[in-house]
Structure formats: C-alpha cells, structure tokens
C-alpha cells in the first residue's frame, strides 16, 4: 500500500489541510504540538475508522472525543491510497456528531463502502492491509517508545521489551498478555483450587471432609440400623409378654371354669349318693330272706336246666322222626324183596355186554353209510349204459376208428383233400382262360405288326400258365397225400368229394360225442372208487358186528361169505347188532336193579337208626332229670316239683341272692361316694368363690360355655400352663423393660442422618465444584499452551524468514540471517564475523533498531493476510538519538523505503534534510505542517446516507 493523499476537513488541531505523500519517503516536518502525530492518527482513522464510545464506554472518553477538531467545523478525513496491485481507493470518514459516516470508492469505480464494514466502523485498512488496527498500531506505527532508543545499557531491556511486545502481540494483541502470562494466571487459579492430595487446599479440605462424612454417615446408619433392630426386638419382647400374659389369663380362666364344673359335679355326686343310700337300703331289706342262699351250684343248675330242656326237645324230635320213618321203612323192605326176586330170575350178562351195546350204535351208523353208498351204484350202471350209447353214435359217424386225439389231424386232411381238388380245378380253369385270352391277344398283336409285344405277351401268358399249372400240381399233390392218410385211417369209407363233405360235416359231432364220453368218464371214475371203498367198509363192518355179538354173549347168526350182496351183508350185520343190543339191555337192567337195591338198603339202615336215636334221647332226658333232682334236693327245693320247675325255682332263688349282693355292694359304694364327696356346704361355698373370681376376671359363667367336668389331670395341666405363661410373660416383660431402658438411654446419643447428609451434600457439592474448576483450568491451560505452540511455531519461523530476507541487504551483509525463538520470540542473528547466533541484546544499537523495525514489518506480514506492503508511519523516532545512530537509521529507512513506504515525522529540519539527501528526490516528499502552503480548502465529502 502506498499512501497518496490525506485531506483533513477537521481532525484535532488540523483543519482544512491536504497532504500529498511521496512514493517512497515522506518527511513530515513540524515543531512539537504542530500536528504531526495528529496526521498519523488521521491516516489511521481513515483506514480503520474512529471508536466513538458505546455501552459502558462513554463517548466523552473515546478516541472520537480525543481528536475532535479544535475549531468548530466539520470533523472528517479523506485518504487516497494505492495498493500494490495498482488499485486506487478513496476513503472518506466523516465524524460529525450524530452523523458518523464513511464511504469507500475505488478510484474510477463505484461505491464499495459496505465491503469494509466491521461492526459500526468502516475499516478498509483491515481488509487491504489484512491486520487489525491494534496490529497496525503495534507494527506499522512506530513512535519513539516503539524503538526505545536510549542509553547503551538499556539494550537488554530494549531487547526484552521487544521480545515481550512481539510475544504479546502474537498471543493476544498489543493490549493483551502473553500466553505464558495467561497460563501463569490459570496456574495461580489452579493453586487456589488446590488438589485432593493437598490437605490445606479447598479441594483437599473438601475431599478429606467428604471422606470423613461418608464414614460418619456409614457409621450412623449402622448405629441406627442396630437401634432399629433393637427396637424391633423390644417390640417382639413386648408382644411375647402380652401374648404370654394373655395365655396365662386364658389358662387361668379355663382352670376356673373347669374347677367350677368339677365342684358342680362333685356336689351333684354327693346329693346323688344320699338318695342312692336310702333307696338301696330299702331294696336290700326286701331281699334279706335270700341273703344266705348258696349259689355255688347255680351254674350247674342252669346248665342242667338248659340241658334238660334241650334233651327233652331233642328226644321229642327224635321220637317224631322215628314215628315218621315207620311207613317208609316197610316200603323199603318190601321193595327189596321184589328186587331180589327179579335178580334171581335174570340171567347173568357177559361183562362186556353194555359196552358192546354202545359200540353197536356206531356200527349201525357205519352200516347205514355203506348202504347209502351202495345205492349209488345204480347211477354208475346208468352211466355205463350211456357210455355204450355214445360209442355207438361215434361209430355211426364213420369216424369211430379215429382216436379223439387224432381228430384234428384228420380234420386237416379232410380239408386239404377237399380244398386241394377245388383248387386244382380253379387253377386249371384259370390257366386255360389265361392261355386262351393271352393267345388271342398275342395273336392280335402279332397281326397288328407288333411282334415284340406279342411275343412278350405270349411269353408272359406262357409263364402265367406254367405258374398256374405248377400251383395246381402242388395243390393236387397235397390233396392226394391227404386222401392217402385218410384212407389208411378210415378204411372202407368214401373219400370222394361227397364223402369228404360228409366227413367234414360229421367232425364237429364226433368231437362233441368224444367230449361227452370224456366228461362222463371223469364223473363216474370217482363214484366207482368210492363204491369200491364202501363195499370194503361194509365187509369190515359186518365182521365187526359179528365179533361184537360174541363179546356181548349174544346168539350170533352165521356170517355170509365175502362178496355177498350188500343187502345180505346188511341183514346179517343187523341181526348181530340186534342181539348185541338185547344183551346190553339185559345187562343194564340188572345193573339198575342192583343199584336200587343198594340205595334201599342204605335207606333202610337210616330209618332203623332213627328208632335207635329216639331211644337214646329218652335215656338222656332221664339222666338230666336225675341230676336236677339231686341238686334241687341239696338246695332245699321242693322235690315234688318237676325238674324244670325245680330249676326255675333254684334260679329265682339265686337271682334274689344276687340282687341282694348287688344292693349291698351298691349301698357300700353309695356310702363311699358320700364319704368322698365331702360336705355339700363346703363345696357350694368353694364354687361361689371361684365363680366370683371368674366374674372378676370379666367372664360370666353363664356366658362361658360350661364344659363337662374335666379330668383332674386336665386341671393340673391348665394350672401348669397358666404358671408357665406367667413365667414367660414375666421374663419377656423384664427383658423388654431392660431393653427399653437401655434404648431410652441411647436415643439421645443417636446421630442425625439428615444433618450428616446435609453436610455431605454441601461438601460434595463444593468438592465437585472444585474438581470442575480444576478440570476447566487444566483444559484452558492445555488449550492455551497448545495454541501457543502452534501459533508461535508458525509465526516465529516466518518472522525469522521475513527479517532474514532484508537483514543482509539492510545491514550490509554484516548479518545474514535472523532466528526467532519459538517459545518467547527471542531474536538472535547469525553474524558473518562471529560463530553461532548473537542475541539481539548483544548487537549494536543501530542493528537492534533496524531489526526492531524489520520485526515490526515482518509481524505485519505474518499476522496480516492481505499480502500487502505496509507503510511505516514513524512518529519522530530519532528525537533522542545521537547523530551517528540517526545517520545509520536514516540510511536504513531509505533502503527500507524500496519495499515499504516510509512516512516519517520529525521536528528537526536537519534530520529531514539528511533523509532527503539519502533518498531519491523523485520519490520523496517533505510536508511542512507548520507552513500554510499546504492548507487547502478541503471539501467535506458528500457521503451517501
């Protein structure tokens, strides 16, 4: 960028002024307070606008107020400049109160103001130079403080300040701090937070407190849980005590009810005993006469009485049976006599007669079967006759001599003979016709002059005739052979055509007849065999019949000879079987009579036994009666009484005696009960006492279900249960009281979980917050350090490269290369005359000044992104420099101006002259601020709204 013209309508002390800049060097000459600095500031205001205050920053303290025109009038500047690309721009900034405007125009182009708006300001410098105003101020605008030219011993401080300024600029801008300082503040903050291990730090304290509180809370919970468990045990003990007391009350109540019931029963017993004594005494008196009656024989008497009774009954029954058996006995005897007579009259049968009779039945069946089969022989006779008839019919056909199996062959011969003749005739006729016709045709052809065809035809006809003749001959031969065969088989038969026809016609009939004969033969072949078997069986049966008759001892007729007619055989067999049956019948009858006689004998014995039994029973009765009489007499019973009456009398006496004894025993028992029962009055009094006690315990006896009087053991058990329950209740009550007292004492010392939790929550929140702060500070530190490493690592080498680029040229090759430390931007130079790098604070003032300026320029290039050359605005930088250094620097500036425009304000005309002397006049310019010649009417630009 090259500044061309600055027009000021009003800016600080300058008003209505115009300044044209030299291409390379511009010297602005003026006394102190003449407006040199104002001019520099105006350039900056044109490029970056003017801050006019805002929220929290009053306008009166802003830059706008600071540079208000001293005189009334417009407040604004117009700057024309040219970029390295050749583009020219005119920027007009108007700062009038209430009407702050800006306008940027490209010379020869249009309004492009909006391209350069940054917030409320219009900052073409930001875009064309690529650096913020702060960077521009720090780098391109150099005041005396910027170079700090002073005493030689200020070098280290100067270098240090330069490095620090560089670092600050790179890290955060001219008004900020370095990254290292920022990290230092974060570290300080981190120290304030502390760490968990550092016990005195807030975090350490919170961590320790939290640990302690958690332990306290855990302990408190355990104590409270233990206390709760003890409370639960206390409740349990109280419940046990209550239960036991209730059980004791229940048991006591039950005992009272039972005892009352027992006493009631006892009183009832006493009363009953009294009445029993009275009744028994009276009854005993009535039985007194039998007191001495001996009852030793009672059982015997009873037994005898029962025996007598039983014996009499038995005797009666036996006598009744005997009487009932008399009639049947006579019958039986009579019958036996008859049987004996009959048996004497009957002959004795053979031992096997009856068995033979049984076998005879079977034989009769066999005979019947044989007879039936024999009758079927008639059918066989008929069949034989039929067969004869069939034979005669077959013979009548003339083919009787032909076996059935040869009929087919005969039929073929007949057919051949018949057809052969006819065929022969047919062929002969055909041949004749062919010959005639063929001959005629051939002749015709020949006649027609067609000898060839005629010949051919003749030949063909001849061939045909020959063929026909041959066929006819063959047929004739066959027929002849067939007839020969027939003649041999059927000698004497007519084998002419008619005869053959007749034979042919008769063949089917002959076949049928042969078939019928065959069928007949098949049917009756079976019959014949069967008949033969039947005949054989019959003979055997007849033999068996006769044998059986012998076995049965019957009169056996003479057996007919074998082969006799079946009916003869059957008759003989029948007679034998009849004899067998008769013998068997007689044997059976005898057996039956024997059996009957045996039965009757048994019956007779039985009936006779009944009489014996009746006699025995009578004797038994007499015996028993004798025994009774004996005992009765001994007991003093009236001897004249019938035995049973005597028994009854004895028993009655015994009964009285028993009654007497029973009454005596009952009376004794009643007396005993009376004694045991005790005094009724005492019992009643005791009952009343117990009932009162029961009512006192809240139970009315009427309301309670009065049980049956319990057993004594049951009452004892109830008493024991009540005592046991009382003891349990006492123990539980005692334990619960002890425990309750102990818990009561512990209650006051129990921790408050809520208090502890509150504290824990608060400490935990504080710790969490401290950890959060720690983490945030740590991350901020890491990010800043990383950013610093990145930015420094990027900027330092570029700075070094940028400085190195001009260093040799500007220092006359004394120093060829600069190194910029990455960490803190410490600058060192590579000298041609010395080994290694020379720190900046060890080089000469002049070199240091030069390097400082180069660093500023380099910084602009590095931090800026426009790639544009930066004009250097030096505000009286040589005020306190000695002439030598001044000279050196002026030369340096002159050389620097080849790449960067230099605008230098000086108050010393000598310096101005010196500079111009070393510069090219064509590219230099001097502006005398004090002179009015440069004062022109600068119109305020008309800015679009």
């Amino acid at each position, binding site marked *: 960028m090259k500044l061309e013209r600055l027009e000021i309508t009003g800016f600080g002390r300058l008003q209505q002024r115009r300044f044209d800049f030299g291409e390379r060097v511009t010297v602005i000459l003026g006394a102190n307070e003449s407006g040199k600095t104002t001019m520099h500031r105006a350039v900056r205001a044109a490029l970056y606008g003017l801050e006019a205050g805002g*929220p*929290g920053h009053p306008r009166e303290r802003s830059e706008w107020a600071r540079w208000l025109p001293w005189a009334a009038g417009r407040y604004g500047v117009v700057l024309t400049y040219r970029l390295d690309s050749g583009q020219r721009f005119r920027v007009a900034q108007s700062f009038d109160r209430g009407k702050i405007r800006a306008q940027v125009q490209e010379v020869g182009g249009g309004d492009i103001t909006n391209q350069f708006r940054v917030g409320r300001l219009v900052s073409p410098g930001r875009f064309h130079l690529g650096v*913020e105003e702060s960077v521009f101020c720090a780098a391109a605008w150099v005041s005396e403080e910027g170079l700090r030219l002073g005493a030689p011993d200020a070098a280290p401080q100067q270098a240090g300040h330069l490095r620090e300024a560089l670092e600050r*600029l*790179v*890290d*955060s*801008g001219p008004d*900020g*701090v370095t*990254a290292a*300082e*920022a*990290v230092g*503040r*974060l570290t*300080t*903050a981190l120290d*304030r*937070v502390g760490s968990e291990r550092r016990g005195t730090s807030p975090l350490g304290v919170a961590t320790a407190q939290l640990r302690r509180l958690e332990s306290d809370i855990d302990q408190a919970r355990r104590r*409270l*849980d233990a*206390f*709760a468990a003890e*409370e*639960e045990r206390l*409740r349990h003990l*109280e419940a046990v005590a209550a239960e036991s007391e209730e059980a004791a009350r229940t048991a006591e109540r039950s005992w009272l009810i039972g005892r009352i019931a027992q006493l009631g029963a006892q009183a009832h017993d006493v009363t009953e005993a009294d009445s029993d004594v009275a009744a028994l005494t009276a009854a005993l008196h009535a039985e007194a006469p039998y007191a001495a009656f001996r009852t030793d024989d009672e059982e015997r008497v009873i037994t005898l009485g029962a025996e007598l009774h039983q014996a009499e009954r038995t005797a009666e029954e036996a006598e009744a049976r005997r009487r009932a058996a008399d009639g049947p006995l006579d019958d039986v005897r009579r019958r036996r006599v008859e049987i004996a007579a009959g048996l004497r009259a009957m002959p004795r049968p053979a031992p096997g007669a009856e068995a033979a009779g049984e076998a005879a039945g079977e034989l009769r069946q066999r005979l019947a079967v044989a007879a039936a089969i024999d009758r079927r022989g008639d059918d066989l006779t008929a069949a034989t006759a039929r067969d004869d008839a069939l034979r005669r019919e077959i013979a009548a056909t003339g083919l009787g001599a032909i076996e059935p199996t040869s009929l087919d062959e005969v039929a073929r011969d007949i057919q051949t003979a018949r057809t052969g003749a006819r065929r022969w005739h047919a062929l002969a006729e055909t041949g004749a016709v062919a010959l005639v016709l063929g001959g005629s045709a051939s002749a015709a052809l020949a006649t027609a002059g067609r000898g060839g065809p005629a010949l051919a035809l003749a030949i063909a006809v001849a061939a045909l005739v020959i063929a026909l003749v041959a066929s006819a001959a063959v047929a004739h031969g066959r027929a002849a052979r067939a007839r020969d065969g027939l003649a041999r088989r059927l000698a004497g038969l007519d084998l002419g055509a008619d005869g053959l026809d007749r034979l042919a016609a008769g063949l089917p009939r002959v076949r049928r007849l042969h078939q019928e004969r065959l069928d007949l033969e098949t049917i009756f072949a079976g019959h014949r065999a069967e008949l033969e078997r039947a005949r054989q069986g019959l003979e055997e049966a007849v033999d068996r019949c006769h044998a059986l008759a012998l076995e049965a001892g019957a009169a056996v007729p003479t057996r007919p000879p074998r082969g006799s007619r079946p009916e003869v055989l059957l008759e003989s067999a029948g007679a034998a079987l009849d004899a067998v049956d008769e013998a068997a019948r007689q044997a059976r009858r005898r057996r039956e009579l024997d059996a009957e006689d045996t039965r009757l004998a048994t019956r007779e014995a039985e009936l006779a036994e009944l009489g014996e039994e009746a006699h025995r029973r009578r004797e038994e009765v007499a015996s028993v009666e004798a025994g009774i009489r004996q005992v009765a007499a001994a007991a003093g019973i009236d001897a004249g009484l019938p035995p049973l009456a005597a028994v009854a009398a004895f028993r009655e006496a015994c009964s009285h005696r028993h009654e007497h004894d029973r009454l005596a025993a009952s009376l004794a028992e009643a007396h005993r009960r009376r004694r045991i029962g005790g005094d009724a009055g005492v019992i009643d009094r005791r009952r009343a006492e117990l009932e009162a006690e029961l009512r006192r315990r809240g139970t009315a006896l009427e309301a309670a279900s009065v049980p049956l009087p319990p057993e004594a053991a049951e009452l004892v058990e109830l008493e024991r249960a009540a005592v046991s329950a009382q003891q349990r209740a006492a123990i539980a009550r005692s334990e619960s009281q002890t425990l309750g007292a102990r*818990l009561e004492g512990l*209650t006051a010392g*129990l921790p*408050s*979980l*809520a*208090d502890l*939790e*509150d*504290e*824990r*929550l*608060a400490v935990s*929140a504080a710790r969490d917050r401290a950890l*959060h*702060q720690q*983490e*945030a*500070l740590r*991350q*901020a530190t890491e*990010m*800043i350090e*990383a*950013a*610093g490493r*990145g*930015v*420094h690592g990027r900027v330092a080498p570029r700075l070094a490269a940028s400085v190195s680029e001009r260093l040799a040229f500007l220092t006359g090759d004394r120093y060829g290369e600069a190194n910029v430390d990455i960490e803190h931007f410490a600058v060192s130079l590579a000298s041609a005359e010395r080994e290694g790098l020379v720190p900046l604070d060890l080089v000469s003032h002049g070199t240091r000044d030069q390097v400082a300026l180069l660093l500023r320029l380099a910084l602009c290039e590095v*931090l800026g*992104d426009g790639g544009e050359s930066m004009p250097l605005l030096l505000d009286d930088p040589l005020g306190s420099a000695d002439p030598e250094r001044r000279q050196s620097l002026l030369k340096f500036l002159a050389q620097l101006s080849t790449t960067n425009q230099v605008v230098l304000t000086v108050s010393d005309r000598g310096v101005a002259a010196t500079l111009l002397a070393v510069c090219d006049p064509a590219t230099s310019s001097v502006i005398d601020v004090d002179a009015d010649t440069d004062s022109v009417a600068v119109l305020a630009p008309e800015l679009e709204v």
Partner: protein
Amino acid sequence: MPLRLLHLADLHLDRPFAQMGCTGDLARRRRQGLRDALRLAGEIARERGCVAVTIGGDLYEHERAGVATAQFLVETFASWQPMRVLLAPGNHDPLVPGSIYLRTRWPENVHLFRSSRLEPFALGAGLTVWGLGHEEPAWMGNPLERSASHPAGAGAGVHIALFHGAEISSRPDGKAVHGPFRAGEIHEKGYALALCGHYHGRRVDLDTGLVYPGSPEPLAFDETGPRGPVLVEVETDGEVRCTALDTNQWHAGSVSCDLGGASTVTAAVDRVSAEVLTATAGWPLERATLRVDLVGSVAPGLAIDLFDIESAVRETTGVTALRVRDLTQPAADLEALAEESSTRGSFVRAATEALAAAGSQEERAVLQDALRYGLEAFAGSEVGLR
C-alpha cells in the same frame, strides 16, 4: 353440622436442605420448621373441630428418618387424641422392612393403611375414607384400580379416597411417576374426593374431586407462593367443600440478576443485593431461602467468585439461605476473537471446536468455563472461579 377433615401431605420430615443452600444450624432450623408445620396442622384441625387429620404420603424420608422422628410423630399424634389420624404411606415413606410405620407402636387414634389396595375406614355419619399405602419405593400401580371392594357396593354415604399418587394430565416436568391415575376416574369410581399427595404444588379441583394440598413448607426454590393443608367439609347431604389454608412459615423463591455492564465485584454485589431485597420484601429474612441466577454479559476482566458474592450478599441483605448460580456469559465477541490469528484466537477456535464436539452436558460446562477462564487470563485479570 358438617364433618371436617384436615388434609396434608409431602411434609418430608428429615429432608436435607443442602441443595437450598442450607447447612448446619440453618438446615436443622428448616427441619424443625417441618415439625412445626405438622404441629400447627394439628392445632388448626382441633380448632376447626375436625374428626380426623389425613396425611397423603411422604410424611417423612425413610432413608434419613430415625428414632427421634418416630418419637416425635408418636407424641404429636397422641396429643391429637381423640381426633383420628389416617396415614397413607407414599414413595418416600413406603411400608418396607424397617419402616417407621411398621416398627412404631402408634397411639390408638392412628390408623395406618397397610395395603396397596384401597380399604375403607369409617369415620361415622356416613363418611368413609378409603386409603392405601405404597409397599415399595417405586410403585406403579393405579391407586383407583385396586380397590378390594367398591364404594358403589359399600352403601350410601360419602366416600373419599386417600392415597399418594401422580395424576397424569397435570404432572409437573421432571416429576417421577408413582401411583399413576387420571382425575376423571375419581368420580367414576364412586369417590367424592381424592385426597392426594406427591405433587408439591397446591391444586384443589372440585369438578374432578382432585385435591393436592402441596408441601406445607417450601422444599425447593421453585415451591413459591402460599402453602398449607386443605380443610375438607362434608355436609350431611353429601356436599363437599375444600378450603386451602396458608400456613407456611418459610418462604422460597428464585430471581435473576443481570450483571451486564458491571465492571467490579462490588458493583456486582450491589446489584445482587438489590435484587435479593426486592424479592424478599415482606418475608421474614430469617426464614427466607432464595436462589439468585447471575445473568448477562460480563467483561472477562470481572472475576466472579460465587462464594465471595454469596457471602457478601448474605452480609448485606441478612438473607441467610442464599444460593447463587453464575449463568453469565463472557462479554466477548467470540466470533471476532476466533478470527484472530493470535494465540488467543487459536485458543478460542480450539475451545469452540471442543464445545461443538462435546458429548455431555458436563463436558460442555467444563469447556465453557475453560474458555471463560482462558479469556480472563488473556485479559490480564485474575481468573474468577465459578
């Protein structure tokens, strides 16, 4: 002569108050305040001639309640005799093993609903209260579905349900759901009213019969406004009336204070104090709990230390239960800073990228503070710990 009940819920005895900025004695005073609220409810019930006090759950916090709490409840309820006390345990005081409800010997006038199904308790004169208790800390059953018998089959009279539950349609954001039900089911199931607990905000809706008394004392900064039990009157003809009573002794609230433009800590403290005094006007300062959210854009050079600010404001205003949150934003043009080619610009870019990639709220919070601390450090000022 109507029958009267006093209904309260969500007392949360033994609750910690560290989240409200109360620790030590102050927290103990807060907890004592809860006990006082219960005693006061009993006095009011006696004065109004109530036949019973109904408690709709969360009477105490099971994890922290101890012997002293049980003793206090026994003594307090016993002193209310012959007035009945009907207890319906909730999710913070469920009927779990070790529950105070189960291991305490209650006076005779106390009835504890021990089943998770509504069971009747006749108060006489045709009034029946149907109550249930949570048997676990996270019960999700519908209280109105689980009646062993039904009011419709229980005869004439007025039937009132008592349980701890979450009415679905009016659930506050973030509130846990325990015992969910719908208000429309109350009359449908035959109940004239449902005396509930769980929501800490008061709600009395006679159209549906839904009654939430809310917590009688504020338990969080957002529990503002008057609070207290609800008096229920049941006429002989079945008409019911509800009157909310304002009995709270403690006050809670939350305010914002814009620190934009404040350049010093003193200025910041002054602003905060002014807001606090405005917000607590009319409150007894010794029973006031307030949360202050610092908002606005603050210059990086202004180091805000919450602890210092809290301490200073407490001293200035006299409000002891104070909790300050720093929600301010740095007054820095992050976009412009990010465009710098300086180390600061690189740091801002790195921090911004890390923020964009942050996976959790916690990570984001740390990075936001890291950015802030870094900017403060680059501004050359002392880093204020937030």
